[in-house]
């Protein structure tokens, strides 16, 4: 895990499945999971009875033949759906000012989600996708299988960022399907104008779902390296303000800190894991952070 993949290198690879596989395999490298056994339809093996095993699990027919207690085991089947939720508003097009060929937040998020999708597919989990923009709503119901993974990747590649985060009323009917034993990964910058993302997150959380929220940031937003007189233009509202960057920097950093604090508190109140990812850091590093946060919840 020490040698991360350079985001710039990945950005040059236009093939999203390849990126997803490369990152995921790097992530899964060295992990040799033993076969998960439990209740299921598909038979896996017999093992000797140990005290504590449920009597209902004992294969009585085999006991009749061999006069020994054996417990029948099957391969565990996953019944978890992985939902990938991507904020596709215009503000997600933000990228570091010094790099023109690097990923913006939206590209970064797409590749990250593609990687998660690959891992989920490998694990046999069901996969669903929700792309959120008021211009275009992408919805893919959760299903397992390789085809679903490919559909998911296709949707991710087709998705265009633009406009603003949609009103919660538009998403409402899709949300009902997501409340069923699901792990939801939400990737967004959490910049909102009328509390729409907070409302969405609140309506998403229920006792049957676990939600991991990844807040993407660019280095420019974190350090505010601008100098001189700059006319900042909002990517979503197109509103412009003229400021002297040096003068507003301190206030900006303070406001930003308060914003992050507020976000953290709000998410915590809804039992949502909050992770911050920097798009100028390697994709697998963020992925590791992301997935380990999920493991912490379990």
């Amino acid at each position, binding site marked *: 895990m020490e040698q991360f993949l350079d985001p710039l290198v990945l950005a040059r690879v236009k093939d999203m499945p390849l990126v997803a596989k490369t990152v995921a395999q790097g992530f899964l490298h060295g992990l040799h999971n033993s076969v998960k056994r439990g209740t299921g339809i598909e038979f896996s093996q017999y093992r000797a009875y140990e005290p504590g095993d449920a009597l209902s699990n004992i294969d009585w027919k085999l006991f009749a033949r061999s006069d020994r207690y054996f417990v029948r085991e099957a391969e565990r089947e996953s019944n978890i759906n992985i939902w990938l939720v991507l904020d596709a508003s215009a503000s997600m097009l933000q990228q570091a000012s010094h790099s023109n060929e690097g990923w913006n937040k939206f590209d970064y998020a797409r590749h990250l989600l593609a990687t998660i999708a690959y891992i989920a597919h490998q694990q046999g989990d069901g996969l669903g996708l929700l792309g959120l923009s008021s211009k275009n709503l992408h919805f893919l119901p959760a299903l397992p299988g390789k085809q679903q993974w490919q559909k998911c990747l296709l949707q991710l590649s087709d998705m265009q960022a633009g406009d603003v985060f949609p009103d919660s009323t538009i998403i409402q009917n899709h949300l009902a399907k997501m409340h069923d034993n699901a792990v939801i990964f939400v990737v967004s910058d959490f910049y909102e*104008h009328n509390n729409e993302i907070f409302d969405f997150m609140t309506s998403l959380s229920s006792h049957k779902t676990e939600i991991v929220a990844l807040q993407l940031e660019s280095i420019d937003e974190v350090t505010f390296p601008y100098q001189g007189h700059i006319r*900042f233009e909002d990517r979503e509202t197109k509103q412009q303000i*003229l400021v002297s960057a040096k003068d507003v920097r301190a206030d900006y950093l303070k406001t930003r800190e308060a914003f992050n604090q507020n976000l953290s508190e709000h998410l915590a109140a809804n039992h949502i894991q909050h992770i911050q990812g920097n798009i100028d850091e390697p994709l697998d590093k963020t992925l590791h952070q992301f997935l380990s946060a999920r493991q912490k919840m379990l």
Partner: protein
Amino acid sequence: MDKLALTLESGTYLSGLLTLTIPIAIHLLSKHKGKIVPFAHIALITVKNSPQLNQARLTQWLLLIIRLLMLLVACGILAQLFWNKNANTSADIVLVSNDWLTQSSDAEKQQLFESLNANQSPRLFLIDGLNQPLSQRKLESKAVLAFQGDTSSTTTPLNIWANLAEITKALPKSQKIQLYTTNRLNQFTGQKVTLANPIDWHIKFLPSTSSEPKLAASLAIISDANHQQQLAYIRGALNALTATLPVDIKVEYIDFSALANDLDLAAQQSHIIYLVDTPLPTELDNGAITIINSNQLQDYTQVDFPLILATQLFASQTKQWFSDNARLSNYQITELPTIDLLERQQTSVENGQPLHIWLILILVILFVVERLVSEWPSKHTAQVEGN
């Protein structure tokens, strides 16, 4: 009356002032004001009215003003701005000729009087004053109504154009002149003159008289014995003239020996034909009488001698008649030779102090200041650290 005023030599270059719109348009369109940086969420950025920003705005305004001034000065240089020392361009100068005053009706005088009063302090002068400075020819506007014209001098020594040239020498080139005159030929005999000032011609058209002139001459022929033959021819020629032409000739024959007695009689005549070898007595040679001596009538044996004699007798009269009664057309009066640019430049140098040197100096200084002001904030305009 002597005032210092800025005067333009080449007004057409003032159209260069239109270029002033260029920096203004650039200023309005550019919004100056920093590079546009798209940002994800500007709600996080609090707008602050920083002194730096105000300074930048101030610099922009300063730059705009300097650039406008630069263009203005450049236009001034092209238009050849100069100080005029004796300019009073606000008021028109109204010149009126004696003949106009004589010939115009009361209504026309009243009209001139009213236009004088309506105008912002115009100055009225008589144009036909010879060798007098302009200030001595001044007329009060009221005097126009009473003035009947000075009829004593029928022919003016200088024509209207020459008079104008004389007057405008002392005036700035942009001084507008209103001129009231008639189209009688005797006011325009001689050369046309180039004039730089804009002139408003008010020409009164006199009706031309169609009647033939009645030629009359009273003649004294003074002769001695040596010129009897010539005298006989002259007598014959005079008889022929009176018989064929509508002329009225009175002839007194005086013998040179009796001249001393008839000196008064001779002095009353308009012409004297002097057929004597000794010089004319000084009493008669006073300029009022036209003297024709025997040398002028050498060709008395010629067939056309009567005509020659008639020319000698009546030439000045027909000329006088012609100059009094012939009329010029509007075009003939107002069309003056144009002046070339070089000449104008020379006259402007004579009349005023040119500002070229000062304007160029100001332009250079403005240029330097503009460079300094526009370069100064660029030290602080790096957009991003390390870039």
